[in-house]
C-alpha cells in the first residue's frame, strides 16, 4: 500500500500518451486523489515524440515528483529522448511494448537500473481485444489499473465521457482493451506488488486545471475588464480563456499586432479607468519594458503576467526556467520600483493573480506576476477554493474637494493620489511619460523630479510589511534554512517534509512578493540560521543576488541553482543540505 505514485509514459506522436495521462488524472481526481500531470513534447509542432508524468497521492502534491515509480516506454528511442525528465531508479517498475525489443544498453548508462522490467505485447493485445492499435493506451491503462489498483470504473467513466455519445463503438473497443489489460496484470503479478491506498471519507469534487487556467480565473474574479496581448508560449492559454470568458462580463479582449501594442492597449484601458491586464513570456516582456516604465511614471494600475520559459532570447520556449527575475525587477530605464509576485503552485496562481490586481489598483502601479512554464502548464486535480475569503481593492477616485483644480499627482502622506479617468467631470489631466509636477504639467525641475521619484517609491513601502505575501514552512527555530520562490518552492516544501522524515530540521521561506525585497522578513527568518540554500531554477540564482542587494545574508546560506528545463527534486535538495553541515 503506497500513498503516492508517480507514473511516466513516452511514445511517438500518434500513440496518445498524453490522453492516456489525462484519463489517469481524471480517474484519480474522481476518486478523490490529489493528482498532477505534466506533458513534454519534442520540438515538432505535431507528430514528434511526446511524454507525460502523472502523480497520484492521498496528500496534496506540490510538484511532479522525482524518480518514477512506474515507467512506460512505447518505444525506446522516444523514451530516452526525454532523458532526465523521466528518471528511473532501482525501484521503478519499467513497462515496455514487447515489440520494441529488449531494453538497449542505454538503460545501463542511465545509472540506477530498475529491478522489475516487464514486456507487455501492447499492440498485439490491442489488435486482439479492440481490433485496432489505436487502443494501445487503453491496454496500458488496464494493466496499470490491475497492478496499482487504480479504480477501473472511473477510468471507464472517463472514456465514456470522451467517446460515449459520439462514438459508442470506439468506447466499446477501448472498454475491451482495458479489460484485457487488467487480465494481463492478473496473470502477470509484480514481484513486489504495490497498490495505491484508497482515499478515505467523502470525496470532494476536484478542479482540473493548470496555472494558466487559474490565472485567467483569478483575473476574472478580481474583475478584470480589459485584456490585450500577443500570443507566446507558454502564456497564450490565459488570453485564450479570457477570449472565451471576458465578453460574458462586459469586458473585451484584443489580440494585438505585437507585445508593445499589447501593453499599450492595456495601459490605455487602465488610463480609461478599467482593471486591465496583459500577458507574455520573456521575449515579449522585453518588448514591453518601455511601456512598463511609462505605467510607472504615469502611475497607472496594470497587471502583467510573465510565464517564464528558458532563455536568453528564444532559448528553450517549452521548458521551465526562473531566469526572468532580474528582468522583471530591473528592465525599465530610470529609477523604477515595480512589485513582482510569484505563484508557487497551480492553486496559488489564483490567489496571486487577485493580489496582483489589488496591489495594482490600490497603489497605482504596474505589477508583474512571475509564473513559469511548469506551474502554468501542469494540470492538477485540486480542491475547490473558497473565494469568499478574498477581498477586492479599487483605485482611489477623486471626489468633491479633490476635483477643485484637480492635482493628479498630489504629493500625499502615503504617496498615493486620487486618480481620475476620461469621462469624469473636472478630473481632466495630462498623463505623460515626461516628468511632471503635482498638477501633471511637464517639468524640467530636478527638485520636482526628486519629489516625484520619492512619491513613486514611498507609496509601495506598505507592501514589504504584508505578512500574507510571505510564508514560513517548518520549524521557525530551525538553524538550517531554505529560501525558494515560484515553482521551485513547491519542491522545497516537500524537501522540508523529506528532511524531517530523515531527522533533519529545516525551515523554508517562500516570498510571494519577490520584489521589492522585504528586508525585515528576511532578517527575522535568518535569525539563528547557520546553513541554508536559496533554491531556484536559473544559472545565476537571481533571487539570491537580489536579496543580497538589501539584506546581509548569513555566510552559511548559499545559492543552489541550475539552468532550466529539469526542475529540482526534493531528494537532491536534502542531500545538498546535508553536504553543507
Amino acid at each position, binding site marked *: 500500500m503506497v500513498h503516492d505514485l508517480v507514473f511516466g509514459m513516452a511514445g511517438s506522436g500518434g500513440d496518445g500518451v498524453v490522453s492516456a495521462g489525462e484519463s489517469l488524472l481524471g480517474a484519480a481526481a474522481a476518486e478523490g486523489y490529489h493528482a498532477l500531470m505534466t506533458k513534454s513534447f519534442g520540438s515538432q509542432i505535431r507528430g514528434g515524440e511526446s511524454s507525460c508524468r502523472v502523480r497520484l497521492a492521498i496528500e496534496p502534491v506540490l510538484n511532479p515528483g522525482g524518480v518514477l515509480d512506474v515507467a512506460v516506454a512505447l518505444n525506446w528511442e522516444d523514451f530516452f529522448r526525454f532523458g532526465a525528465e523521466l528518471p528511473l531508479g532501482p525501484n521503478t517498475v519499467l513497462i515496455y511494448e514487447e515489440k520494441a525489443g529488449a531494453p538497449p544498453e542505454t538503460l545501463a548508462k542511465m545509472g540506477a537500473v530498475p529491478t522489475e522490467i516487464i514486456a507487455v505485447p501492447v499492440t498485439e493485445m490491442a489488435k486482439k481485444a479492440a481490433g485496432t492499435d489505436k487502443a494501445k493506451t487503453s491496454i496500458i491503462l488496464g494493466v496499470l489499473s490491475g497492478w496499482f489498483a487504480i479504480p477501473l470504473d472511473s477510468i471507464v467513466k472517463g472514456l465514456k465521457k470522451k467517446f460515449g455519445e459520439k462514438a459508442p463503438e470506439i468506447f466499446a473497443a477501448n472498454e475491451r482493451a482495458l479489460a484485457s489489460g487488467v487480465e494481463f496484470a492478473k496473470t502477470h503479478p509484480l514481484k513486489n506488488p504495490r497498490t495505491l491506498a484508497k482515499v478515505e471519507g467523502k470525496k470532494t469534487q476536484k478542479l482540473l486545471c493548470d496555472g494558466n*487556467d487559474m490565472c485567467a480565473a483569478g483575473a476574472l474574479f478580481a474583475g478584470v475588464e480589459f485584456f490585450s496581448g500577443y500570443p507566446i508560449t507558454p502564456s497564450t492559454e490565459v488570453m485564450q480563456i479570457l477570449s472565451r470568458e471576458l465578453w460574458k462580463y462586459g469586458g473585451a479582449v484584443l489580440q494585438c499586432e505585437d507585445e508593445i501594442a499589447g501593453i499599450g492597449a492595456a495601459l490605455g*484601458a487602465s488610463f480609461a479607468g478599467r482593471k486591465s491586464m496583459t500577458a507574455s513570456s520573456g521575449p515579449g516582456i522585453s518588448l514591453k519594458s518601455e511601456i512598463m516604465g511609462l505605467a510607472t511614471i504615469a502611475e497607472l494600475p496594470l497587471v502583467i503576467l510573465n510565464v517564464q520559459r528558458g532563455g536568453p532570447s528564444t532559448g528553450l520556449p517549452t521548458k521551465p526556467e526562473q531566469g526572468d527575475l532580474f528582468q522583471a525587477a530591473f528592465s525599465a530605464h530610470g529609477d523604477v520600483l515595480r512589485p513582482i509576485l510569484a505563484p508557487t503552485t497551480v492553486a496559488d496562481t489564483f490567489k496571486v493573480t487577485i493580489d496582483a490586481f489589488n496591489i495594482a489598483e490600490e497603489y497605482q502601479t504596474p505589477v508583474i506576476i512571475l509564473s513559469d512554464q511548469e506551474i502554468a502548464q501542469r494540470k492538477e486535480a485540486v480542491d475547490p477554493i473558497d473565494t469568499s475569503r478574498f477581498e477586492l481593492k479599487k483605485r482611489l477616485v477623486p471626489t468633491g474637494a479633490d476635483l477643485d483644480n484637480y492635482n493628479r499627482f498630489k504629493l500625499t502622506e502615503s504617496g498615493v493620489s486620487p486618480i481620475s479617468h476620461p469621462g469624469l467631470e473636472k478630473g481632466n489631466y495630462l498623463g505623460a511619460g515626461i516628468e511632471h509636477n503635482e498638477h501633471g504639467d511637464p517639468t524640467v525641475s530636478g527638485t520636482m523630479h526628486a519629489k516625484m521619484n520619492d512619491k513613486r517609491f514611498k507609496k509601495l513601502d506598505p507592501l514589504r510589511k504584508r505578512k500574507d505575501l510571505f510564508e514560513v514552512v517548518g520549524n521557525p527555530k530551525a538553524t538550517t534554512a531554505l529560501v525558494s520562490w515560484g515553482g521551485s518552492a513547491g519542491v522545497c516544501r516537500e524537501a522540508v517534509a523529506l528532511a524531517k522524515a530523515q531527522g533533519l530540521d529545516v525551515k523554508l521561506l517562500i516570498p510571494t512578493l519577490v520584489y521589492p525585497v522585504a528586508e525585515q522578513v528576511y532578517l527575522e527568518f535568518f535569525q539563528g540560521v547557520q546553513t541554508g540554500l536559496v533554491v531556484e531554477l536559473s544559472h545565476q540564482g537571481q533571487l539570491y543576488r537580489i536579496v543580497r542587494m538589501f539584506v546581509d545574508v548569513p555566510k552559511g546560506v548559499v545559492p543552489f541553482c541550475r539552468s532550466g528545463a529539469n526542475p529540482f527534486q526534493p531528494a537532491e535538495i536534502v542531500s545538498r543540505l546535508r553536504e553543507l553541515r
Partner: protein
Amino acid sequence: MEAKDYKSSLKPIWCPGCGDFGVVQGIYRALAAIGRPPHEIAFISGIGCSSRIPGYTTAYGFNSVHGRSLPIAQGVKLSNPELLVLCAGGDGDGFSIGGGHVPHAVRRNMDLTYIVMDNQVYGLTKGQLSPTSPRGLKTITSPYGSLEDPINPLLYVLAYGCGFVAQATPADMPGMAAVIEEAIRYPGFSFVNIQSPCVTYGEDEQQLTEHKKMMKPLKSLGHDQTDQLRAMDLARAYGKELYTGVFYKNPNPPPTYEAMVKLRQAEQAKGARPRERVLDMYLQK
C-alpha cells in the same frame, strides 16, 4: 461650447511660427463645432513637438511614448466607447517608430481620429531625417543627402483600407478645421495628414507661404470621394502635389469594432457565471 473652452492654460513651448500652433487652433474649432464637453474627450499622442498637443487642450490628454499613441488610443476607446478619442503625433512618431501599428489600427476600424502633423523632419530631436523627408535631403544625420524615397502616408493609409483619408494645411484654417471636424464625425477610423511646417528645421518650400501657392483643394478638382482606386492614384502624387481635402470617404461605413464588441458582450452576457463561482468552469464533470 466655444473654441476657447478647449484651450488649456499650458503655454505651448513650440517655436514661434511653428505650424502646430495652427493645427491646435483647427482642433479647438472642430471640437467646438462638435460640442462634446472636454472631459468626454481623450486625446492621445506619442512623443515629438507635435505630440505635445494634448497638453494644450482641456481634454483628458495622454502624451505617452514615441510611436505608441494608436495602441493606447484603441485601449481607451474599447474600454469606454462613449468617449470621443483623438490621436495625434508627428510623421516620425506615426510612420517611423509607430508605423507598424497603423495598418492594424485602420483594419480594426474603431471610431477614432488620427491626425498626423507632417513636417518632413524630426523637430524635437533637432532636425534629422523623417520618413517623409524628400530623397536627397541634407540634415545633420544625412550631411551628404538621404538615399531613400520618402514614405507616402496618404497612399499607405488608403491601401490599409481606411474609410476616411484627408489632407490639410494650417495655411487654409477654415478648410483644415472643416476637414478635422468631418474626420471626427466619420463613424470609424479616420486619418488626416496635416502639412504642418517646422519653421526651425524645415525647408523653405515646406512653409505656409508655399502651401498657399501650391495647395489644390480636391473639391475644386471635382474628385469623387467614393472612388478608392482614384484616391490611391491621386495619393501617389504625395510630395509633388499638395492636394487638400478628402481623398476617400467610405459612402457606407461598416460597423465599428466597438459596435461589434457591444453586440458580442450582449450575446455572451447570459453565459456569465457569478464571479465568485468562476472556478466552477474547471470542476471535473
